[in-house]
């Protein structure tokens, strides 16, 4: 199935590069927008499967991409949005996921340079287009390894549980986690139950919901 993708970036160089890369991977780039307004017009018109959006765009060069992503999710709940940025910050992730009734569903937030690992990038884009979630590994690693006041994550979780936690927070499915850690799917499920128990969190059946629950937990510094 040919994925139809809209691109928005104020840099023509990156727009072209990204479009070329996606087309080389057999995707259809339906429009290349230079700002949020152009992107929204395109999305309304073309109804693509997903949009790849730069966070920093005119006019203020701040977080226009996040607002555009929320707007797309509001207007078209079936269209996934993958946000790209030269920085990944927790606050931006929480702003992106937190205000959504669907949580992290159909949303992704990655460093721009993740495109250099084409397979990973395409995987993340397809995941988002399918209603999944993609969170940048750097951001997750930073949140997981952040020193917690009064308690230590390392003592709480086994190293295997930490690996599972990170992949889960990145938005991977159980299947993907078991594949990349060479574990059985049952084992992965057991680890996830154990993590939610240790975090004192209610188990979430859907991937995008558990991403948000875990991120919220980590951001709050481990306390509830």
């Amino acid at each position: 199935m040919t994925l139809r993708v809209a691109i928005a970036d104020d840099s023509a160089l990156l727009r072209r590069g990204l479009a070329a890369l996606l087309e080389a991977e057999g995707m259809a780039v339906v429009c290349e927008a230079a700002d949020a307004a152009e992107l929204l017009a395109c999305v309304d018109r073309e109804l693509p499967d997903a949009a790849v959006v730069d966070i920093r765009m005119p006019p203020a060069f701040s977080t226009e991409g996040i607002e555009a992503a929320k707007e797309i999710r509001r207007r078209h709940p079936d269209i996934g949005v993958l946000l790209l940025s030269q920085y990944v910050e927790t606050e931006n992730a929480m702003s992106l996921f937190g205000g959504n009734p669907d949580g992290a569903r159909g949303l992704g937030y990655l460093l721009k340079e993740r495109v250099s690992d084409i397979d990973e990038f395409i995987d993340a884009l397809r995941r988002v287009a399918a209603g999944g979630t993609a969170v940048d590994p750097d951001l997750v690693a930073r949140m997981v390894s952040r020193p917690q006041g009064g308690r230590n994550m390392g003592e709480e979780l086994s190293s295997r549980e930490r690996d599972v936690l990170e992949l889960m927070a990145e938005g991977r499915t159980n299947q993907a986690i078991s594949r990349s850690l060479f574990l059985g799917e049952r084992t992965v499920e057991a680890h996830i139950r154990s993590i939610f128990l240790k975090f004192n969190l209610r188990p979430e059946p859907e991937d995008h919901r558990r991403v948000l629950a875990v991120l919220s937990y980590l951001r709050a510094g481990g306390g509830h």
Partner: protein
Amino acid sequence: MAAQQMTPRQTALVLGVTAALALLVAFAVDWSPLAVQDPARTLGLLNAQGIVHLGGIADRAPFTVFEFAMFLAVGLGLVLSGVAAWRSQPSWRPGFLLVLAGWLWLAAGLRRSSDPLAFTAGVALTLMYQPPLLQLALSFPTGKLANRFQKAAVGFFFSLWLLAAAANWAFFDPRLHVAAGESNSRNLLLLWDDPALTTAIGNVARVVQVCVGLAIVVVLAVRWHSGTPAYRSAFLPLGFALVLKTAATVWVAAAVVQLSGPQVSEALLWQYPATAVIPLAVLLGLWRYRFARGSLGELMVEIGAAPLNERLTGALRKTVRDPSLELWQWSAAGAAFVDGHGRARELPEEHSGRAAMVLERNGAPVGALVFDQALRDQPRLLDAVRSATSLTLENRSMEQQLREQLVEVRRSRERIVTAGDARRRQLERDLHDGAQQRLVAVTMELARARRLVPDGEARELITRAAVELHEALQELRELARGVYPPSLRERGLAGSLTALAERTTVPVDVEVRLEAPLPPAVELAAYFICAEAVTNSAKYAAAGMVRVRATGTAGELTVVVADDGRGGAVPGPDGGLMGLADRAAALGGTFDVDSPPGRGTTVTAVLPFAADGIAGTAPEESGTVESGTVERGTVRP
């Protein structure tokens, strides 16, 4: 008359003449029993009728050493007060008139001599000390006669007094008219003895004297009435003394004719204290003058920080005893002097009763003192006031300059920091839109290239290059974050501090409470202060926990970073803490490090949103004083 002090030579000359005169009189006094009882030699008694009356009293008091001492004291008092006035007043005239009166008084003592020439001279000079005093009263306080009428009047007094003496004694031989005891005084003025003529002349002289006295009183009363407060204040002691002296003279004249026995002699003794009040009054005037100069010192102190118009003017009024004194400011915009009510004013015309002193600086007017014309008679007092005012103006203008410079320095420092911040922001933008974008684009190209080449050496090379590129991008990202944290633009201080906490190896507890949005400069300064302090805590303090608190009110932000580390941190010139202190100071804020050894480090910064604290605390000014120095003051009529 230019200000002219009495030279030491003049002082010596005056004192020498006075001493010689006193010695001459002392040697001339005939202390023989006959001489001390001679009524013709009674000091201060010119009237022939009085001498005849006194000569009829058998138990009249003789001339005593006590009386002579009083006589000398009055004469010396006149001379010394004259010298004192001469030395302290810029005009020599009042002092000289007093000295002259003193000399004439002392010379009249020759009357106690048995030498006919000395006796006659003493008689003729008996009341001659009065004309100089009258001239002083008329010309007070300058001693300079204002017009031809006054000059003629003074010449008339001298002639009249001399004529009265001659007329009284031209037909009076004292040796023939002493009923009790005898007189051996030889009157060289005598033409022939004629008691009837003497009595007639005496009566006429008395009427003339009373008329002249009344005229003088009227003139002085008119001057007093039309006089300004300043003139009255200066003339008051002398006027008082003159009234006392006149009353005493009338009393003595009446007593000599009306009383009998030793009472007459006692009454005659009253003339000494009555005359002595005159030099005393002059000394009192001098004291008031000096007192005024004394309070000038207070003036300079008192007006230091006072608003220019009200308190300075009040102090000046008190100092020169002129309640009508005003200080006008020069308004360069209106090219006019402006009074305390902001009205443009013209400098007073001549003969308007007002005088002005223009305070100039580098040839340009800065203000004017407007006062009673009578004050021009005390140029030294005005000089002192002018200096004080000028000093104050200069002081204030220097203070103003200093304050302006301080404000300017703070503003320029703020501008430097603000400009630096703007450049940081721009640099981060440039990195983001330039090098970073291009490198990201390169990673995409490389990724596609890697896809195109088959497994092998080329693909290996491309993979390694991609890894290097990834590292480069990461380093560039960290560099850009150090220049200006992008999260500040995107998420504000709270988001940036959270990001900071995530990247720190020590647990950081962040709490941000803001009532109002932060100005960009304050936000950035707060971020850098927190970042530096947190880095220090993690790196050097071996802290187990760091607490970051940012609390913003409507006007300022307080940032506190506290750790539980080893403490003992000292802000040094090489350390980052000093740079943070400078940053806080540039915003007009404070920066404080509390780091007792073993008990953690607490960094506190208070950053006001409006940096211009200095300008805000400057006192209200009623008038602006230009910078520069007051160079000279000119007195204009």
